[in-house]
């Protein structure tokens, strides 16, 4: 095979969704394998490693994000059905949910407001730009919803997506240790706190602790999406950050 022929194949493949779709799945599988082999070391979180590997590969080959996303959108799309699927573990943990509904509502309101207000306040004190503040506000909400909220308020949705992913990784990494430190042992409370702060990535981590923690984390993620879509737009307008 001549180098010329190889270049032709590369040009063909790099324009088809297949290449970037496969690359995304394979990068994640390798990152996850590494994570398991390293005893789930927090800094080797598979989402983080996958992003680093993929961004390096795209930068090295001069590939645009929009080209990459044409392939990766098939994975991204599954966020919707996965959100719907969260109803399943919730259903199987319903008896505990019914028993705890009031404390969980208190936790939800406290968590949703703390997540948005503390992030905006800290960034504002450190002179972040108004666009960054808008992208930061919904960072604890699951990606598709956070992007919708930011867009509605006139902020940059793709920046929100990254902050959402970073928050998710952060919550998954520090959440369990932090909850151990403040001696919270109840799996429902642990899951709910992690899910409120760090949505689906936190929920994936909570499922590793137990099915119960995962179910409550998924519940928190769903409820936070609900609460934040209602609370954040008027709140940010009230603070004068959004038009």
């Amino acid at each position, binding site marked *: 095979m001549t180098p010329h022929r190889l270049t032709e194949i590369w040009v063909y493949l790099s324009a088809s969704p297949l290449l970037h779709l496969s690359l*995304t799945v394979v990068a994640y599988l390798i990152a*996850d394998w590494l994570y398991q082999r390293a005893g789930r070391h927090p800094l080797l979180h*598979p989402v983080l490693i996958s*992003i680093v590997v993929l961004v390096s590969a*795209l*930068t090295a080959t001069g590939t645009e*994000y929009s080209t990459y*996303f044409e392939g*990766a*959108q098939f*994975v*991204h799309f599954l966020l*919707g*059905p996965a*959100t*719907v699927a969260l109803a399943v*573990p919730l*259903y*199987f943990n319903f008896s505990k949910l019914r028993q*705890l509904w009031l*404390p969980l509502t208190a*936790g939800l*309101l*406290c*968590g949703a407001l*703390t*997540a948005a207000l*503390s*992030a905006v306040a*800290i*960034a504002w004190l*450190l002179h*972040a*730009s108004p666009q960054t503040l808008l992208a930061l506000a919904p*960072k*604890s909400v699951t*990606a*598709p*919803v956070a992007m919708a909220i930011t867009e509605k308020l006139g902020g*940059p949705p*793709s*920046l929100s*997506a*990254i902050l959402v*992913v970073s928050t998710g990784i*952060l*919550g998954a990494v*520090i959440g369990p240790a932090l909850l151990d430190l403040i001696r*919270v042992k109840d799996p429902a*409370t642990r899951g*709910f706190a992690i899910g409120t*702060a*760090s949505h*689906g*990535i936190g929920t*994936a981590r909570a499922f590793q602790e137990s099915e119960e923690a995962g179910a409550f984390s998924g519940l928190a993620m769903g409820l936070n*999406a*609900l609460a934040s*879509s*209602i609370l954040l737009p008027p709140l940010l307008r009230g603070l004068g950050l959004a038009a």
Partner: protein
Amino acid sequence: MLRTLAVLLGFQLAGEFLTQLLGLPIPGPVIGMALLFASMSVLPALASALRDTATELLQHLSLLFVPAGVGVMLHVHRVADEWVAIVTALVGSAVLTIVLTAFAIRMCARWWTARQPR
């Protein structure tokens, strides 16, 4: 597996439809989740049928965030300029949110159980 996927997509579609129809601020998939939950409460057989595939899908939830995360490429300059504010805000807010949420649940649960007749 195919049936579960059809059910999940169906509920997502129903959720999107309601969101658009009623102009709700809540995203379609979240409404879909609520609708599926209500349906399983009425029809428990649906829950058992979905359980295995749904659990499998949720085990790989992290993967689904990778494409959005790679979007960091688009914001290299902003992140480079404001990284101190962004990192401090993310870390501070994550710690505060997890701790305060857990405390709120614990305090409210104690008050709630103390108040109930034994």
